[in-house]
């Protein structure tokens, strides 16, 4: 049976910090289809479009009819755990450090037999399970069997907590905790069990409704953080960087102009300075020490969240320069992900549709409420995903973009 984690003991500062190790990360190209779906929290397997056979492991031709028309389709993961084992020994350092480790063989109702990690709540084989796909510490897709009934949480199984970026007992930096979204993120983190939340504030003189309640939360420490000030970012990193387990970059400079609406580049430059260069400054100062702490005890550095925008996927011309700054940030966030992955620190990129705030006042609903966005961010940290598209608009734009990006460009651009 699993039990929710308890507060970890204080780390002994004399001991050498454990270096991060990762599960095997090599996958064939075709197997990366599993990773693409797991990155957004889905289990997908290849299904033959000619004969319907479900395939696993991923492959280049249907095992039944040889068709090359294989499409990745969502699966419910229902199946039977037909056999299991406990690995007492592994050649892989990651699993060696975590032995004994439970593995299972599940016969999916859809057909294939799949090797999975097994949640501690699963009854011994034979038993009914539900298989899901999530990203492991190496950022690659793995399959996980949970009991068919109920809602077993990987974060409750101490072996599987590594697949999540669970904020419980962790220390979090929210780069802008004063904006509407930032405040909701702080509240959601406090509710999810974070131990300490540093709340970044860029303009301490500026009042914001609701902020006094945030400041009063017992977990909260307000810190000065202006992403346009390189020196200030470095100073803060010097003070708290070595303690930050999760960094959530909510800082966002949003204006509503395309190209023709303004003359001069000042507006666009201000957006870039926060949304793109701000991320760069933050990453230069905080990423190295977070990488070093990728395996630093039970509360290690575990995630970096970037609040991007669905406008990063395709430019929304009424907010054209803002879209471009978010697109730049998205690209840089991918760079950051590549640099953080070897240390087992997950970069989670969030692409909401228009947020229900002042800058999107003129956009018609549906718009995502700050509280809902914050909930989605915390849920992503509690799960095993790295790309998040919260809300109906984001989900629809994503579907349209994957189906035909040129069509979406026309639909959005008019």
């Amino acid at each position, binding site marked *: 049976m699993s039990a929710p984690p308890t507060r970890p003991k204080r780390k002994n500062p004399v001991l050498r910090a454990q270096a991060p190790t990762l599960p095997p990360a090599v996958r064939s190209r075709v197997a990366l289809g599993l990773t693409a779906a797991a990155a957004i929290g889905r289990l997908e397997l290849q299904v033959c479009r000619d004969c319907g056979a479900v395939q*696993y*492991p991923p492959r280049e031709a249907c095992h039944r009819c040889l068709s090359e028309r294989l499409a990745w389709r969502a699966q419910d993961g229902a199946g039977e755990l037909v056999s299991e084992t406990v690995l007492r020994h592994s050649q892989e350092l990651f699993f060696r450090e975590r032995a004994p480790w439970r593995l299972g063989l599940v016969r999916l109702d859809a057909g294939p037999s799949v090797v999975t990690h097994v949640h501690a709540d699963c009854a011994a084989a034979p038993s009914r399970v539900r298989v899901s796909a999530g990203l492991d510490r190496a950022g690659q897709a793995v399959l996980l069997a949970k009991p068919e009934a109920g809602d077993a949480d990987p974060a409750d199984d101490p072996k599987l907590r590594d697949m999540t970026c669970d904020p419980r007992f962790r220390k979090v930096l929210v780069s802008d905790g004063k904006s509407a979204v930032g405040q909701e993120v702080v509240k959601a983190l406090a509710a999810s069990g974070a131990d300490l939340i540093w709340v970044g504030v860029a303009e301490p003189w500026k009042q914001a409704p609701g902020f006094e309640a945030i400041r009063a939360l017992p977990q909260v420490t307000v810190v000065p953080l202006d992403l346009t000030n390189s020196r200030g970012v470095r100073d803060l990193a010097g003070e708290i960087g070595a303690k930050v387990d999760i960094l959530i970059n909510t800082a966002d400079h949003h204006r509503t102009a395309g190209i023709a609406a303004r003359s001069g580049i000042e507006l666009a430059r201000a957006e870039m300075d926060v949304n793109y260069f701000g991320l760069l400054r933050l990453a230069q100062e905080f990423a190295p020490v977070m990488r070093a702490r990728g395996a630093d005890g039970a509360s290690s550095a575990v995630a970096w969240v970037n609040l991007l925008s669905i406008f990063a996927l395709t430019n929304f011309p009424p907010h054209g320069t803002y879209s471009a700054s978010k697109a730049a940030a998205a690209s840089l966030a991918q760079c950051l992900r590549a640099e953080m992955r070897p240390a087992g620190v997950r970069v989670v990129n969030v692409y909401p549709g228009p947020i229900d705030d002042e800058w999107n006042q003129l956009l018609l609903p549906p718009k995502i409420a700050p509280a809902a966005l914050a909930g989605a961010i915390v849920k992503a940290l509690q799960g095993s995903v790295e790309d998040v598209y919260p809300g109906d608009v984001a989900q629809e734009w994503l579907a349209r973009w994957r189906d035909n990006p040129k069509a979406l460009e026309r639909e959005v651009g008019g």
Partner: protein
Amino acid sequence: MAEAAPRTRSGYGDVVIAAPVTVPYVRYSIRGAHWFLARALAGLIDAAGITKDDVDGLCVSSFTLAPDSAVGLTQHLGLCPRWLDHIPMGGASAVVALRRAARAVQCGDAEIVACIAGDTNHTDSFRLNTATFSQFARDAVYPYGSGGPNASFAFLTAYYMRQYGATAADFGKICVAQRANALANPQALFKKKLSLDEYLNARMIADPIRLFDCVMPCAGAEGFLVMRGERARALGLAHAKILGTIERHNAFAADPVQVRGGWALDCGDLYAQAGIEPRDVDFVETYDDYPVISVMQIEDLGFCAKGEGPDFVRRHTFEVGGSFPLNTSGGQLSVGQAGVAGGHLGMVEAIRQLTGAAPGRAVADAKIGLVSGFGMINYDRGLCSGAAILAAA
């Protein structure tokens, strides 16, 4: 439309198998696979009293020969064969090599084929070999921490035990008997008697597989020659006849867990080709990477029905003097697994038993032996299966 009657497979006529050669196993070696394969070839030439040029066919199996394959070896060893094959089928390679070589000799494509298998073993060999074993293993097994096939066989063993009531003691009985056989084999790496208590109390590797269920990877090589009987007799070379062979890959793919192998499909064909019944077999060399697979082979090769393996194990004794002599050299479990040569170990031992070349562990009056091969855990099951029935000349 009426189904055509299946064609009867040709026998092997006067093609024979000879010259059992083992390059002594060592746990670790700094030498490359090429060294072990060269010693095997040299051993074959010496045993047969022929020259290197007489060997006009070569069949090679090796994991650690990479990046070379059989082709590289021809230049490396100064050979100019007119028939060449490389068999990458793990523990089934010996049976498959025999099948390929025998047909080549039978049709005159080669006169004397050397079938050699060997691997080196460095301290990091096991880890490196398993990391790149197959695409499916790399994508769908290795990420879960199983270094090598232990997890896949653990699933298989646990399932088999649950389905058919096999106990750890059943598997232990096989391991203990094979160790007893190995004590009479000077080439076995394991020299100490094994008791059932020691087997049961040994540490778990991947539940329910224990320490003595696993082979010990090592460096070494095995080899044999395939030629016409006429040639063997002219050379005065002891040899064995080939009564029948089978081979099958990826059988029963729809079974959720592997409980049977390709032998179950082709078993009838094997005995029909050989013109014998299972009860005519005097000894069996199974591919014993794990004892559960030996039990599976015993069932699938017609010695008992599927699921009756545990009962069969309890009713029989497996020492060379027992009621069902099994892995008379000690098998891989007690001799060691020299990589791919693990499959050739049984074939070479069978030749020894049939030519009176296994002193101290000879099966009395051995006339017919069965060699079984199995291999290539590509993902969750062994894909390759094969078997050969040999007879004393």
